């Protein structure tokens, strides 16, 4: 089973990288971009019998830092 884990900064946590990307887009002349937040995508191939609890635990213990980040698990069919 393919699983995508999206790790993003929590609301209210300053994202200097997102801000720099936004600034660069402005510099390239792209208008109408209101905000940019950057994050991380982790693609995994796991056994089909890996349960939601295990995936959740992987995110909490390693893949995301719960102080500053949220995560979203997406199973790809």
């Amino acid at each position, binding site marked *: 089973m393919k699983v995508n884990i999206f790790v993003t900064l929590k609301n209210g946590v300053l994202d*200097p*990288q997102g801000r720099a990307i936004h600034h660069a887009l402005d510099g390239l002349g792209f208008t109408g971009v209101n905000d940019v937040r950057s994050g991380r995508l982790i693609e995994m191939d796991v056994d089909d019998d890996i349960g939601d609890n295990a995936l959740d635990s992987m995110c909490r213990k*390693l*893949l995301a*830092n719960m*102080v*500053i980040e949220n995560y979203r698990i997406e199973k790809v069919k």
Partner: protein
Amino acid sequence: MKSAVITFPGSNCDRDMADAIEKIAGKKPQRVWHGDSQLPDGLDFIAVPGGFSYGDYLRSGAMAARSPIMQAVVHAAERGIAILGVCNGFQILTESQLLPGALMRNAGIDFVCREVPLIVENDRSYFTEGYKKGERILVPVAHHDGNYFADNETLDRLEGEGRVAFRYAEHVNGSSRDIAGILNAKGNVLGMMPHPERHIEKLHGGEDGARLFRSVAQTLLEKTS
């Protein structure tokens, strides 16, 4: 004082750290490798040095915090052994949850590498007894991810309990409340972004960092004698 310096793949301040400890405490620290699962017996002091452990993969300090030796360091912290984490070492200590909060990319995006003035906020820990509260000292920083973040409740608790050890005297990296170094609740774990081991002798341009190691050596000596 019996001490150890931990080395991870990608650590690059471990030798400076070991050198500083030896010069000031007079005894060579033992060198411990990340894959070791046990620390040497009878340690009084453990230093987690700076660098780019595991290439900063995933997040700075994230991989190192899950290495075998860090389990032993967490147990050592619980037993009250003095632990200092500098720069990447600070990141590793927050990722290990020995210290609250997280260190994020500098607010200005740039790598910051210069001497910065710090204000000593706590002069009653193992590490800071040699300073005076409110004193201004000069210590070098060299980091990309030094922007300390914690929620307001955590920050208030740190301030209220006197656990902010050092504060930047000027804006350096966007850290919440200009925090440069914090202590754990028991006061035996200090994490800081500035590098005291880089200001040990006059030739370095300053000796304010030496006083931190002298504090550790003296307070631990008093404790064990």
